[in-house]
């Protein structure tokens, strides 16, 4: 009796394990085919979004397809900015030292240029904290003329791609602040970088001269 019991138990254990093993295998195959299907559908997607940006010039920053949000919660792509010159800087609003100086330099440019086809653009490198509401508040605090200024926030990938094409370096520090380059960019109507002004609190005459060349 005892022997028979042991035999039946061990057989049932083997049976159970075989079933489990097979189940595992089936699941794996399923998972694979799902992943493959996903890949092809994604490939299709990327084929179709590419078509939209075919016309931009070879060096235009506006070829980046990322979607941004303005301080007024409007969704825009960079290509929507074309047709006007942009004085642009990448900043974060909780920045206490460098960014206020950059904004100040940009205001100096604003005060000294008579051209009304020049707009001013601040792009946040801090997607976590710089929501549209925060950007709006920042604009108010800095008394920015919203007819000429626009503030954008986007996701981490969008920020890094834009930074990469501008040669803008930044790094998030453990305390949540950022180390970053200080660059004021002048973009022409097509979104090409026409001039870059490096550093803080310097004469902005070079930027004004380059605006007038455009």
């Amino acid at each position, binding site marked *: 009796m005892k022997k028979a019991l042991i035999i039946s138990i061990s057989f049932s*254990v*083997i049976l159970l394990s075989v079933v489990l093993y097979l189940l595992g295998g089936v699941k794996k195959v399923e998972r694979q085919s799902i992943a493959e299907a996903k890949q092809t559908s994604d490939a299709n997607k990327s084929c179709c979004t590419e078509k939209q940006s075919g016309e931009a010039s070879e*060096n235009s920053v506006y*070829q980046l397809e990322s979607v941004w949000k303005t301080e007024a919660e409007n969704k825009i792509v960079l290509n929507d900015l074309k047709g006007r010159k942009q004085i642009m800087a990448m900043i974060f609003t909780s920045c206490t030292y460098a960014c206020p100086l950059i904004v100040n330099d940009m205001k100096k440019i604003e005060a000294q240029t008579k051209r009304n086809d020049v707009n001013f653009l601040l792009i946040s490198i801090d997607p976590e904290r710089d929501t549209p509401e925060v950007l709006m508040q920042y604009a108010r605090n800095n008394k920015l003329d919203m007819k000429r200024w626009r503030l954008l926030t986007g996701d981490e990938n969008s920020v*890094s791609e834009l930074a*990469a094409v501008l040669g803008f*370096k930044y*790094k998030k520090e453990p305390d949540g602040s950022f180390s970053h*380059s200080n660059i004021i960019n002048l973009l022409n109507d097509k979104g090409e970088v026409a001039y870059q002004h490096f550093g*803080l609190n310097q004469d902005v005459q070079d930027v004004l001269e380059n605006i007038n060349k455009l």
Partner: protein
Amino acid sequence: MGLKKVNTVLLLIGLMNIIVSAQNRKVNIPEGMVLISGGVYTPLYGAKKDSITVKVEPFYMDKYPVTNAQFLEFVKKNPKWQRSKMKNLFADKNYLSNWKSDSELGEKVLPNSPVTNISWFAAKAYCKYYKKRLPSVAEWELVAKASAAKPDGSQDPNYIKQILEWYSRPTPEKIPQIGLRGKNYWGVFDLHGLVWEWTSDFFSALVTGESRGDSGLERNLFCGSGSVNASDFKNYPAFMRFAFRSSLKANYATNNLGFRCVRDIK
């Protein structure tokens, strides 16, 4: 008695089967990748003088750098990334310039050698297509500091010497094939010795916490004031990689710079 023995053996086999099937379902490492169980990376430069460490979560990493043959396969499936269609914003004129044409590798490269003359955007697009991404500097450096025997070889003079010897040699005209040198502690090949590799956040190579004036950054790199903050003076190879990364631009395609991908664990 004989029957009892047979029974015990059967029981053991059954138990082993259960264990194997359970493991089969748990371990699902993507093909061609290895598991990096994470760790701690100390950036060469921190914001503060006392060095700050970065915790690196576990991830999968490609065993080898992406090869010419693999990248050709990608380009065939994604014609946007053909050499002739490339826009300067995404890759400069050296992009895949060592290939014969859009669809042929030609004589100058080996199919099984790391692909080079690749921009950051191209490397990123490749990884994304295969549901992967570029490693961060922290991830790359964590894996790259492993010697053959230890997860951290950065204090091992022989290991450092080996890397420096490679750095001091000019890039050969034809880059050798992947996998011919030994693997490191994690089972990853060719992080050193063949080509340099792109990282997702190469643009984070700055020096000081608060940057007052942009040009000062690079100037301070190897001068007294800059290196006061450095966390590890002996690790010259890490200094060199830092300097190399800080000189890169996203559309640069050069003959000694390739890449590999990583994948998050879900």
